[in-house]
Each structure stands twice: as structure tokens, then as C-alpha cells.
């Protein structure tokens, strides 16, 4: 599903229009929503980056020939995929202090979201590595490449191309997951919207704005994914 950048630009322009139209009812809640948006973005961006790191580490760990590493990755993946993100967030923020580790609201949100998404990402990376043709692994053996070069230079670059579409979807899911951070007392976009709704009762306007902003953010991720895919494919020539 390819979408032109116009698909982002139009809604974004609309958003800007809304923002500058400081007319009437909208101006009551919009500043608060934008403040919430900065929280959402400040949680989402570092989480996305950390999630990619975890995905690759745990995805490769799952395929490792070193048994303890494989088991550790498997346990991590199953636990953090098996439990709801919201429960994970609550647990990190409210239960972990019982074990002597107190996290700030932001850290709990960042860790909970990345660990949860990273477990899904790890399965994507694992699948992508397994989708790299067997011959590529064999060529690495016959060319005597070390583990580091084999994965760093040969296998991962090919696997990541395969993983892009699924990773894009996972990233959008991660973005949607940030809507839950109010559980650890952060006031993100969604929480700001709910608060403003209780103050101003402009339900339709507020939730339309929320939906629109989330839609724009998701489009940014989707279009970046598609662009990335095209760059990779051009690189790989006429296959």
C-alpha cells in the first residue's frame, strides 16, 4: 500500500490550520493537547530506537547456538509478548519498587513500551533472518567469515530489508501503545484529551483532533517505512 507524502502533508496542514485558527472552542483544549503530544513523542521516539536494538539482540539471541542465550531470549520474548502492555507498565511502576528498584514515570513508560514492542520485534527479526536464503549462510562459512562479519555485513543487512514492512507495523503498534502511559501518571496526548473532555465537554471535537493527530503520526511512520523499502529495493537491483 503506497501512499504519497501528500497523505501526511494534507492532514498536517489541516492540523496547522487548526492550531493557528485560535478561534473559539478549539483554542480551549488545543494547547493542552499539543502539550500532551510532546509527551507522546518524547516517549515514542526513544522507545522506538531502543525497541529496534532489543529486537535485533533478542531476535539473534533466539537463533544463537549458545543455549543459555537462546533460552534467555525465548523467555524474554514469551513473557513480554504474553502479558498486556498495561499490566507490564503497572508492574514496572508499582511493583518493582517493592524489589528495591524505583523507576520514574518516564523510565517506566519507556522501558515497558520498548520491552513489550521489542518482544514482538525480536520475532520479526528472527523470521527475517530465517528468510535469508540458506546459500548466504553457506557462502559465509566457505568464505571463512567470522560470526561478527557474517551477521553484521552479510545476513543482517539482508534480513532487515525483509523485516521493514513488519517492523513498520510494529512501530505503529508501539505508537498506539504510548496511549497507555497515563497508567504511570504521564499526561500524554490521550490523557490530555480525556482531561480536556472532562473540562470542556467538547467530546466530538477533542476526539476528532486526537484521532487526526494519531493518524498523522502513524502516516509518518508508514511513509518512512515505504520510502526505506524503496531505497533498499533500488539498491538490490532488478530482482
Amino acid at each position, binding site marked *: 500500500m503506497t501512499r504519497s507524502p501528500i497523505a501526511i502533508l494534507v492532514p498536517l496542514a489541516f492540523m496547522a490550520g487548526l492550531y493557528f485558527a485560535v478561534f473559539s472552542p478549539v483554542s480551549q483544549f488545543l494547547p493542552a493537547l499539543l502539550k500532551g503530544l510532546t509527551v507522546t513523542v518524547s516517549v515514542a521516539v526513544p522507545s522506538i530506537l531502543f525497541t529496534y536494538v532489543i529486537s535485533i539482540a533478542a531476535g539473534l539471541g533466539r537463533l544463537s547456538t549458545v543455549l543459555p542465550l537462546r533460552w534467555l531470549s525465548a523467555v524474554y520474548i514469551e513473557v513480554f509478548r504474553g502479558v498486556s502492555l498495561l499490566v507490564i507498565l503497572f508492574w514496572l511502576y508499582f511493583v518493582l519498587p517493592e524489589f528495591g528498584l524505583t523507576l520514574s514515570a518516564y523510565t517506566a513508560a519507556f522501558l515497558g513500551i520498548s520491552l513489550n514492542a521489542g518482544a514482538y520485534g525480536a520475532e520479526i527479526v528472527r523470521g527475517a533472518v530465517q528468510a535469508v536464503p540458506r546459500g548466504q549462510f553457506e557462502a559465509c*562459512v566457505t*568464505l571463512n*567469515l567470522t560470526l561478527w562479519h557474517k551477521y553484521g*555485513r552479510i545476513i543482517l543487512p539482508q534480513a532487515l530489508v525483509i523485516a521493514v514492512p513488519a517492523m513498520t507495523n510494529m512501530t505503529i503498534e508501539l505508537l498506539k501503545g504510548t496511549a497507555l502511559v497515563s497508567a504511570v501518571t504521564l499526561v500524554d496526548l490521550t490523557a490530555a484529551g480525556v482531561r480536556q473532555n472532562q473540562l470542556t465537554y467538547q467530546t466530538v471535537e477533542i476526539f476528532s483532533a486526537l484521532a487526526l493527530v494519531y493518524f498523522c503520526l502513524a502516516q509518518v511512520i508508514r511513509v518512512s517505512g515505504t520510502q526505506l523499502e524503496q531505497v533498499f529495493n533500488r539498491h538490490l537491483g532488478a530482482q
Partner: protein
Amino acid sequence: MQNEKIRFEGVTKRYGSLVVLDQLNLSIAEGEVVTIIGPSGSGKTTVLRCLMTLESIEDGLIYIDGEPLNKMERGGQMVPASTAHLRKMRQKLGMVFQSFNLFPHLTVLQNCAEPPVMAMGVGRNEARERAIDLLNMVGMGDKQNHYPAQLSGGQQQRVAIARTLAMQPEILVFDEPTSALDPETIEEVTSVIRSLAVKHSYTILMVTHQIDFAHDISDRICFFDKGRIVEQGPPTSVIDAPVEPRTQQFLRKVAQAR
């Protein structure tokens, strides 16, 4: 007899209850060109894959220059080879695959110049120069900056040969190098292999279905069936005047197919 380069000693390979190699004994001299022919499923390719350590073997030993490949000596006992030992031994080996297995995300030049840098610590410039020489040798010098997907099968296979040579192996292993090619591009690959067999001192072990080609370049032909060598000798005897009924039958079938 010249120096022995490779020796298979009682090598047995099984997949479950299926015996693919049955107590294989085979000795190859330095500089010798040996071709394995035989019906599909006879274990020909497995011989190469065991030599390249792509497959484990259940029993037996493979020696290269008199040194065990799949085992090593530790404390007076033979134990399974360590990764370091395998890496050391594999430096002498180079393999060309049926399906080329070029790295699709690297250019032709990178495919040939990077592995020596990564695996042997050769300097970047040196590796680059040697790669260019080799690409010129296989007639691919003008395609350095192409990606594998932009090349025909025959061109990819020639690049794959250059990539293998860039690792400076002493032993070349060809696994059906022309089987995945369009008929019109076979010749460009066989002529490269022929020049390697004739002009250079490589020890070559090859599996192929091209009997005429095997006849041309081989010092020795091994006819393989059901995991065993049924008949071996110079091409003039095994191909032109086979003794074993199974060899005769196989060659008749191949001749009919053409």
C-alpha cells in the same frame, strides 16, 4: 604419486536411517583435477559439502595436507574440531556453488574485495586490486559496480569464481557450477574453469552433469552411486570404456538425454 592433498578415510554420512556416504575412501593428489559424476541422489554433492564442513559426518576422517579436518588432537586424543581449527583448515578451501550465492546487497567488486578483508585481514587497497585483477581474468572487469541481480547467471557464476579465488585457496570445490545456468551461458563459465584447471596449480574437486566437460579437464573421474565410488580412473577409461554395468547404464542414459 605426488603429494597427497585431500584424503577421505572411511567417511560416513547419514540422514536418520538414510546412508548418504558409505565408508568413503578417496585420495586426491596436489594439482589433480577430480570430477565426480553419477545419478542424482547418489551423494556426490554431499562429498563436497562434507569437505567444506557444511555438513557434519558421523564417522571417518577427512585429511587436508595430512592434517585432520573434522577432528583435532588434544591430549593425545582425537576430539571434534574447534571453530578455530575449522577456520584455519578452511583457509585452504574455496567453494563455488550451484546457485552462486553472491551477496545481493554488495556490488560485484565488494563481493570479491570484502571477504578477504573481513576473513584474512588483507589490506583494503590490496584486496581491491586483487579483486579487480581476478574480475578481469574472468572477464567481468567492466561490471565491477553492478549488483548481482543485474547480471545473467553465467556472469554471476564468473563473479562467484573470482570471489572464491580472492580468498587464495589451494583447493577449489565446484558444486554443479553450470546446473543453474541457461544453456547459452554455460560455455562462458566452463571456459573459466577450464583455464583454472589447465593453467593453474589448484587442486580441483568438482561435481557436474556435463560429461564432455568433465572428460576434457579431469585427470580422474569417479562414478558415484548409492554413496559409494563404483568406478574411478582417467576419463579415457571411465567415460570412454566403462567396466561396471552401472556406469555403462548411467552414461547411456546421459547420452540418450542429449
